[in-house]
């Protein structure tokens, strides 16, 4: 570990500084939502639908309401006249009409649409009393046929929503359809595959939780919630649902135990809690049980795709045609519509100069939990589509998979893809060649022979991913249907003594911002790390924020801080010029000292800050006192992290068990602030991606719509012994060209790049064209024996 002396002053950027936030987590004094206990605390539980699709014919809460300790029982009746939970992204159909946007009620009214749908909220003095009363709620259901199979959403004749009788939310297209069709006519070879991108449960180990309090003194609310973007949560809840004035609502996302996307969204649970807290005039806490989390957290992925890749005789890609059906679940979650479109199809160029691409996406409603962004969000599905196709094509053409990729790599930048993005920079050969070295591809044949001697099969698979991170230029996002801006805000408050509090709209729920962001500030201001505090996650403290997702925190949130720091330094120079009796333009700032260029006259940062707040000798005619600056940063482009992953598996043909023997990840994240934290992000992403490929699957019974994988007994969560020691390296890389730190983002790469590498390796081992995810022993065994 390259732990630096924390008292050292300069050169924090690029160092593996151990995390400052660790101590509170390691000693048990972190404050997660469930740890917050308010005066007069009461407890909420939800009655949930046991059916995938049913009419509520009777809902009698009288007995529950009269039960001991019960403070209130609330149903869809109470919410029927207020707004539903909004969807933040409008997608238009090919014919220009808007997507179907049926109401997503806070509590179900008249009908339930998935197992786990919220039917009633019970508030009681104790959790035990709330649960006891829950059993007294009488609900009669008229069960309807369920829509589960996305391959055939009209099979049962049922409509999840009356507004969408064919269960289609939208039919969307991107790219050049005619041009792509034309390219296929000149193809020497076409590779075709149909596959499912399996449905996943995010499974942050901290379940979703909320604690809502109404303050009678000024008719305001405070909501503590396990959430990744408290300002967005506040805006959506106030402006679109409850009509609470935004200045009367404070949302605090305290320590949050992992998010992975699932805590971006505005959910009905916390919305109901906020509303009910005024009814019962008490704070109400709700913490999801794990089984509730499986039923009601927004799931991820769940695409069914057919892709065709047209090539010339030398394997140059000519055209790529993709048809995807995406499951949105029963209701449109906050960013659900954008995931299989804007965040998916725009990445279908991958690292390749495919001249013509056409992608059609049909998104459907089903009687399953809502599906939304989960680590990678659309980009893992795109990478899986591209990288499974490329590898399959290589095998069909008899070309080495690395060589086929190299033949098609984009090598000149900026590069405008046929699907709407412009890659600013990259060096795909650098990560490919380094990954090949690190993975010892040269030694694969010998290892394969060893495996075969033992009766085992060994395979090697590549994946060369690209992702679009740092979302997003607001104007571009808006043109594509976003109903929000996607900038970030930061504030640098310099205290009189030169200590600094930085307020950021990004939110850390494991990413280590309290360390990484402080490294940036320490270097810019030339002050020690311990003079800096990073504050996040509280709308009462932070001016605004769009939050953390899409690997955007440092690229967007970090840049906002840098811009605020630049303003602090600019003002500091003017104060220093006054103190040093020099011209503003002659002042330089370096290593925490303002000095007159070419002289030995100088004044340290803390003297300037003191002067700003004790302005006895101060240029009052030119400046206001104080040293506090904020900045908003709206990026001019996405960032484009990319890399090559290589997986080597050994498969036991007798049992179908796949063992990942080696996994190598070589990434280009541009500049890196803290290599230790970046590596840790990749490790975590790899575990989720390999988990998707081998273990995890949300399974609904296709007839009843019951979730069959509703606990850790049934859903295969990755554990420590499912993985080898990952070899992870970040190349020196190509810095992002359009943010001052040159950073691209690293949070999702592991989950994006790894699934196709694993499946490609298994296909190589078994010499088969496809193995469905997750490649469980049973599935692999059936593949070996050529069974459906």
């Amino acid at each position, binding site marked *: *570990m390259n*732990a630096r002396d924390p008292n050292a002053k300069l050169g924090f950027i690029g160092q593996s500084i*151990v*995390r400052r*936030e*660790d*101590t*509170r*987590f*390691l*000693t*048990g*004094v*972190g*404050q*997660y939502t*469930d*740890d917050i*206990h308010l005066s007069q605390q009461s407890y909420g539980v939800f009655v949930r639908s046991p059916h995938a699709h049913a009419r509520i014919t009777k809902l009698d809460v009288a007995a529950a309401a009269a039960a001991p300790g019960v403070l209130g029982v609330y149903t869809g009746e109470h919410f029927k006249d207020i707004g539903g939970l909004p969807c933040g992204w409008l997608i238009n159909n090919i014919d220009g009409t808007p997507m179907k946007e049926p109401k997503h009620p806070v509590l179900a009214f008249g009908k339930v649409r998935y197992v786990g749908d919220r039917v009633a909220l019970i508030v009681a003095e104790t959790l035990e009393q709330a649960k006891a009363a829950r059993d007294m709620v009488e609900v009669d259901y008229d069960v309807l046929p369920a829509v589960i199979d996305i391959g055939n959403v009209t099979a049962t004749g049922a409509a999840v929503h009356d507004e969408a009788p064919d269960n289609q939310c939208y039919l969307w297209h991107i790219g050049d359809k005619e041009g792509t069709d034309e390219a296929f006519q000149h193809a020497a070879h076409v590779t075709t595959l149909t596959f499912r991108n399996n449905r996943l449960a995010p*499974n*942050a*180990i*901290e*379940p979703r939780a909320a604690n809502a309090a109404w303050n009678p003194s000024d008719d305001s609310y405070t909501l503590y919630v396990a959430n990744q973007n408290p300002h967005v949560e506040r805006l959506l809840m106030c402006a679109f649902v409850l009509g609470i004035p935004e200045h009367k609502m404070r949302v605090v996302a305290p*320590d*949050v*135990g*992992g998010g*992975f996307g699932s805590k971006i969204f505005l959910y009905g649970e916390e919305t109901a809690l906020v509303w009910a807290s005024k009814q019962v005039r008490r704070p109400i806490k709700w*913490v999801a*049980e*794990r*089984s509730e989390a499986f039923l009601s957290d927004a799931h991820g992925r769940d695409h069914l795709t057919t892709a065709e890749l047209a090539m010339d005789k030398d394997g140059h890609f000519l055209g790529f045609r993709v048809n995807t059906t995406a499951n949105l679940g029963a209701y449109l979650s906050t960013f659900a519509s954008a995931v299989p479109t804007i965040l998916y199809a725009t990445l279908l160029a991958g690292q390749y100069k495919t001249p013509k691409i056409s992608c059609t996406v049909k998104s459907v409603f089903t009687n399953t939990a809502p599906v939304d962004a989960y680590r990678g969000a659309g980009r893992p599905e795109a990478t899986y589509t591209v990288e499974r196709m490329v590898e399959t094509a290589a095998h069909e053409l008899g070309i080495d998979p690395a060589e086929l990729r190299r033949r098609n790599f984009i090598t000149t930048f900026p590069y405008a893809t046929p699907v709407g993005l412009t890659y600013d920079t990259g060096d795909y050969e650098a990560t490919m060649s380094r990954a090949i070295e690190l993975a010892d591809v040269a030694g694969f044949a010998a290892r394969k022979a060893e495996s075969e001697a033992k009766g085992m099969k060994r395979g090697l698979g590549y994946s060369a991913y690209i992702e679009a991170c740092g979302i997003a230029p607001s104007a571009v996002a808006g043109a594509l249907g976003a109903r929000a801006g996607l900038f970030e805000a930061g504030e640098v408050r310099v205290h009189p003594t030169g200590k600094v509090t930085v307020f950021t709209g990004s939110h850390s*729920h*494991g*990413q*280590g911002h309290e360390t990484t962001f402080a490294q940036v500030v320490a270097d810019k201001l030339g002050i020690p790390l311990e003079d800096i505090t990073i504050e996040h996650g509280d709308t009462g403290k932070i001016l605004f924020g769009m939050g953390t997702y899409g690997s955007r925190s440092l690229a967007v949130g970090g840049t906002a801080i840098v811009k605020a720091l630049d303003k602090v330094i600019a003002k500091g120079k003017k104060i220093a010029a006054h103190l040093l009796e020099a011209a503003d333009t002659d002042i330089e700032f370096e290593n925490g000292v303002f000095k007159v260029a070419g002289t030995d006259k100088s004044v340290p940062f803390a003297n300037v800050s003191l002067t700003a707040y004790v302005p006895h000798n101060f240029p009052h005619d030119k400046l206001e006192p104080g040293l506090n600056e904020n900045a908003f940063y709206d990026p001019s482009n996405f960032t484009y992290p990319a890399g090559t992953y290589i997986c080597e598996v050994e498969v036991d043909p007798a049992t179908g068990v796949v063992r990942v023997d080696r996994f190598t990840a070589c990434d280009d994240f541009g500049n890196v602030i803290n290599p*230790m*934290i970046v*590596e*840790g992000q990749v*490790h*975590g*992403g*790899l*575990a*989720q991606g390999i988990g998707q490929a081998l273990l995890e699957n949300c399974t609904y019974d296709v007839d009843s719509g019951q979730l069959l994988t509703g*606990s*850790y*007994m049934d859903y295969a*969560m990755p*554990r*420590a*012994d499912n*993985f080898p*020691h*990952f070899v992870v390296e970040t190349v020196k890389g190509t810095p992002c060209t359009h943010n001052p730190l040159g950073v691209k983002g690293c949070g999702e790469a*592991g989950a994006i790049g790894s699934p196709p590498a694993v499946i490609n390796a298994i296909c190589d081992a078994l010499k088969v064209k496809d193995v469905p995810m997750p490649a469980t022993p049973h599935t692999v065994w059936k593949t070996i024996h050529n069974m459906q």
Partner: protein
Amino acid sequence: MPLLSLTVNGKAVQREVAPNTLLVEFIREHLRLTGTHTGCDTGQCGACTVHLDGRAVKACSMLATQAAGRQLTTIEGLASATGDLHPMQTAFNQCHGLQCGFCTPGMVMSAIDLVQHHDCSSEAKIREGLEGNMCRCTGYQNIVKAVAQAAEATKALA
């Protein structure tokens, strides 16, 4: 309600508890020691792991009254009175063995038991020993590294 007497982090504690109170509820709700977490309903995730008489147990899977007369140590009781971290806590910090921190208390308590009572001589053995604790953030690699480092440190002390 039965009166429960036990030692918690070195101090004698007496509380009335309902007989159906889980140990994890007792720790979190009665004692307000919120470092011990609940991550699942089925005894799988290990976030609630504490030490009872020096051995790791999942506090969601036993009743509070079963801890009567015993020595309970939670994550809050690991560091010394002067604030010096336990070698396992130090190793987790140095090796970046935690991200969101939610599984961390249980992971650290399990890891200490693992080092004290089981074979940690190889990465494979450590990985197998951590089977009962889930982490969604780290991919386990740096947890394994931390446990190996703490095991070395413990060996050096012995």
